[in-house]
């Protein structure tokens, strides 16, 4: 890998995000249009048919493929690609867009992440019974598999995870487009009904509809102060359930992706250099383990740092400033791009009540599958 191939070559010139939630009255196309036209306006795109060279879209629930996006935006006569990579889908769509510009192929591309799970008629993931092996097939039971082992080794428990849900709910109250805008208490989290031990209802993120869009432009064509992409990668990992020797104390794809993206961005000490981060919090434990796996803190120390408030809005390294998957909502394919939306606002200093003090570098992270895929993107000020 050519480590500096990406750094500062691509600018994020516009971002858009529709309100996430149970968008009963909006179709996937409606949400894509809302998010894209916000991003167009932000990037100063007035003639998308001419100004956009290619589209990279990501969704895991879409049955219509890339045409759903090109048809919604009437972007025809140009390449439109759909990416699917579990919860890393949005970040992978971004990566494809970044690579296409770095390769010299295009000047301006559109990255569209979206999903519409609420049209399926089930509140959470579907119960899969199309096989006999590896059941139950639910994200909650996949991600919960690190709990018993981690709790036993490091002495953390449900209370530590609960504080993450409380933090993210608070941050969600400050984000205009978030789904859940309600403060909760640690007791609320601990007394909620069980989903998959140790996850109760409030340990799980809110599955919602949503779309988020980013406009990427070759850096030399963008304004000098446009936000730059410092690095982006997506890494595949083994299925932790059958990986020989797996200790169920961390998720390797995050560690591997972090190592690669820090090299791309020239970051040697993420704990101090990263100023704000959006970490994948599909479940509270996912965020907890990711603090460690991504190199913000030592393995096993999350409990102390959660207790010290390090990752709260006023803390040393605020995480999930817009409420995260937990409160902003989780339309799977949109989530990685929604994090770009938040990080661009943070870096521009336009995040309002959620604004972190003068950030220079912002990180976004997704991990999905069993988990078997991790995407990380780092943006920075020019």
């Amino acid at each position, binding site marked *: 890998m050519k480590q500096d191939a990406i750094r500062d070559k691509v600018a994020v010139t516009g971002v858009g995000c529709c309100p996430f939630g149970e968008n009963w009255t909006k179709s996937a196309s409606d949400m894509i249009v809302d998010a894209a036209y916000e991003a167009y306006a932000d990037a100063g795109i007035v003639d998308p048919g001419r100004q956009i060279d290619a589209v990279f879209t990501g969704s895991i629930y879409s049955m219509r493929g890339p045409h759903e996006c090109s048809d919604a935006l009437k972007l025809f006569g140009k390449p439109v690609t759909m990416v699917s990579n579990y919860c890393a889908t949005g970040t992978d769509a971004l990566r494809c867009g970044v690579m296409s510009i770095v390769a010299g192929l295009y000047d301006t591309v559109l990255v569209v992440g979206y999903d519409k799970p609420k049209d399926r008629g089930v509140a*959470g993931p579907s*119960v899969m*019974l*199309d*096989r*006999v*092996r*590896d*059941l*139950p097939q*639910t994200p*909650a*039971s996949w991600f*919960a*598999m*690190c*709990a*018993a*082992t981690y709790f*036993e080794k490091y002495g953390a428990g449900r209370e530590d995870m609960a504080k993450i849900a409380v933090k993210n709910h608070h941050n969600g109250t400050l984000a205009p487009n978030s789904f859940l805008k309600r403060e909760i208490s640690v007791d609320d989290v601990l007394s909620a*009904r*069980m*989903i*998959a*031990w*140790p996850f109760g209802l409030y340990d799980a993120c809110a599955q919602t509809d949503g779309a988020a869009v980013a406009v990427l432009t070759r850096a030399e064509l963008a304004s000098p102060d446009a936000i730059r992409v410092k690095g982006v990668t997506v890494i595949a990992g*083994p299925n932790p*359930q*059958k*990986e*020989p*020797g*797996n200790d*169920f104390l961390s998720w390797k794809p995050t560690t591997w992706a972090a190592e690669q993206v820090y090299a791309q961005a020239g970051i040697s000490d993420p704990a101090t250099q990263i100023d704000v981060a959006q970490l994948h919090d599909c479940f509270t434990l996912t965020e907890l383990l990711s603090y460690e796996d991504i190199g913000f803190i030592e393995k096993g120390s999350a409990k102390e740092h959660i207790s010290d408030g390090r990752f709260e809005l006023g803390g040393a390294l605020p995480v999930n400033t817009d409420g995260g998957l937990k409160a902003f909502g989780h339309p799977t394919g949109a989530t990685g791009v929604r994090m770009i939306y938040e990080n661009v606002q943070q870096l521009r200093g336009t995040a309002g009540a959620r604004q972190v003090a003068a950030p220079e570098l912002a990180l976004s992270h997704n991990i999905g599958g069993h988990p078997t895929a991790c995407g990380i993107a780092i943006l920075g000020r020019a």
Partner: protein
Amino acid sequence: MPGILSFGAYVPPTRLGFALMSGGAPGDGGPERAVAWSDEDSVTMAVAAAINCLRGFERASVDALFFASTTQPFAEKQAAALIAKALDLRRDLRTSDFAGTLRAGSDALSAACDAVAAGSVGNVLLIASDCRLAPPGSALERNFGDGAAAFLIGAPGAIASIEGSYAFSEEIVDLWRAAGDTFVHSWEERFVVQQGYSAGICEAVKGLLTRLDADASDFAKFAIAAPDARSHKAAAHALGLSEASLVAPCFGQLGSAGVAFAPLLLVSALEAAQPGERLLLANYGDGGAAHAFVVNDHIQKLAPRRGLAWHLAKRRAVPRYEHYLRARELTAREFPEGAGPGLSATVHFREREDEISFLAQRCKACGALQFPAQRICESCFAKDAFSRVRLSDKSGAVVSYTLDYFFPTPVPPTIVSVVEVEGARVHLQLVDAQPDEIHPGFPVEFSFRRIHSKGGRPNYYWKAVPRARERG
């Protein structure tokens, strides 16, 4: 002379107290019956009994598998072939299902003895298993029980030789289940007991004694099938058998386990048998059948195994009658349990070595054990260089687990575990355990179970169960 080389049993640990059936509190200690849980049926119990029977014997030594049951899960599609695959038996195997009557086990035993005596096969694995469903609230519901017994039938090295058999056929509609019926039906109880049961047992036993020119007092133990405790006692009295010569029929513990009942009582007799003793097994159903055995010195060399006593001691009381109804799919549901397109039969066929035989693979290059089969070694990248290793008779330990409260099961949560077996990692549901006893390192063994009924047919795979302290 053909005989029994080995035996094994399986009785589901779940017990339904009679008190629950009449609306009372669970409370331990009262009369109860064994009930197969939602993930068990005649096939899964047969596999468990056979594994117990074959402990210490080469599976490749089995030349034929005879399966006897009135509750084969398929009307068309052989159960014996499925059981043979789950047991990882040889491919050049004779398989047959014996069905339709409570004496199907006797029919299978006679066929096995004839085949061995004729020299057409060496060893026959004979499994009797039943899981009959009675109408809720009926007397049958109290008297039925579920279970399975397995015997390896062969010639040299028999622990008990078969001296002779006697069978007769009768046309009678006493107990029946028409095609498509859910429950076993019964004609008037006194008619059933007198003409269906007692007449069948007595004629079979007397016929055998006459054929052998023997007297009842020549036999140490009688394993006599019966629909209920009272009828059992009455038949023994009619035959002039002493109380001490009867294998305890275990009503109030096991229940009348259909085709498997007399075979389970024979297992019980063999567990305590001494060389030189003679044993008699009697079955009824559309007539009757009886078999006489003489115990050989070899019985002292057979390692202790999981028989009837072992299983009766291992029990878990059902706390609510409604749980039983849910487990047996007797409660109203929004959609039929089997609704939906079901599994791809193509995938099932392609993955039968993994999912039914539960074979892992060992890398010939680095030695790592992995599950399921895959083309490239997860540890060393070697390609297509593996030998298959059967996991079903190994044991393992829980690496980690969770409790899933949403997966459909009669009584949530479902315990979901990742289990390590000699370095291989397998994702399995863990059953027959309480959630609060599970921890990383929890020792388990494996049990063939019915996973769901999507597509309107049973779909099977393996689950983890607590490793029994006594290996048997």
